[in-house]
């Protein structure tokens, strides 16, 4: 049977890793009471989980993702293994979720902010926020800008990336600035994107200045 497991630290609540694959189905006595059945099922899952590590598993593995540092730092018995098969999310999508061991609850983490860039046009196509990773394609790449200084303008970042004079530039929509596009020697990387957008922060400040608080008008 298909099983998707996710491990979290019982002490910090941080994500440790995920594994998805096929395991032997549990053989549980059907005459058990509901409480005994649940206990037996968890014992079975525990016996499966203990045999799965970042180094491998004796089962048919489809996909896995691990935070090596969190795994190494996890003490004996310091992790909880959750069955997340029911969500149907790709492996790795729980990486920003947070576990509360006292309440035995799993919650989504803070929203991350993304920009989607069309590789054919080099234009920002979308500003997105999600508490799950957004995966792009070769034609539409997605960059995570969470925590960057430009993130405060997220939701209104649209414009054109241009390779000119040996570096990437970003021309925000609404500036009516023209810049010839030289042939780019390499593809736009996350570092290129951050550098080009950071350069335009003064423009963003001017174009996207937040509206005045009404109490300021009455001061």
């Amino acid at each position, binding site marked *: 049977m298909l099983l998707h497991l996710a491990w979290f630290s*019982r002490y910090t609540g941080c994500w440790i890793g995920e594994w998805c694959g096929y395991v032997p189905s549990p053989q*549980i*006595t059907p*005459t*058990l009471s509901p409480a*005994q059945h*649940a*206990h*037996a*099922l*968890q*014992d*079975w*899952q*525990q*016996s*499966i*989980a*203990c*045999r799965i*590590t970042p*180094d*491998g*598993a004796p089962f048919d593995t489809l996909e896995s993702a691990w935070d090596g540092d969190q795994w190494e730092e*996890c003490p004996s*018995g*310091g*992790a*909880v*293994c*959750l*069955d*997340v*098969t*029911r*969500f*149907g*999310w790709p492996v790795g999508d729980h990486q920003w979720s947070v576990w509360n061991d006292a309440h*035995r*609850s*799993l*919650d989504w983490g803070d929203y991350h902010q993304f920009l*989607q860039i069309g590789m054919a046009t080099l*234009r920002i*196509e*979308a*500003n*997105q*926020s*999600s*508490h*799950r*990773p*957004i*995966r*792009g*394609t070769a034609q*539409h790449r997605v960059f995570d800008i969470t925590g960057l200084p430009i993130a405060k303008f997220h939701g*209104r970042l*649209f414009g054109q990336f241009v390779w000119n004079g040996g570096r990437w530039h970003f021309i925000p929509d609404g500036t009516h600035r023209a810049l010839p596009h030289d042939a780019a020697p390499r593809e736009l990387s996350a570092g290129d994107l951050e550098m080009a957008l950071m350069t335009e922060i003064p423009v963003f400040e001017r174009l996207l200045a937040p509206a005045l608080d009404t109490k300021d008008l009455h001061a």
Partner: protein
Amino acid sequence: MRLDPSSIANAIWALVPIARRSVTASTVSDKTGYSLTAGSYVQRASSSQHGQATANPTTVSSVTTSRAHLSFSGGYYGQDSAYLSSSTAITGASATGIGYSLSEYF
């Protein structure tokens, strides 16, 4: 304390994969303190994702069931007045629209 035969059987079942360890030579880790099956822990009843997009295909997080609801909201982007206003459930991984909201319910 008198032992329940069914609990003995379950304990033996739980030990079987470990007993096979000597045959498959698999590694057993002690990092997992306990495991919880679906329904044994609490999670938020819904998940959401939002976006502002130009009228181009937009990538959204993959969902593998039809329980997700994707809605669009009209907007004006300064270049043209085209906007979409529709809602649909999706099973794929892409959507087109201006403002969109993807919600999943568990």
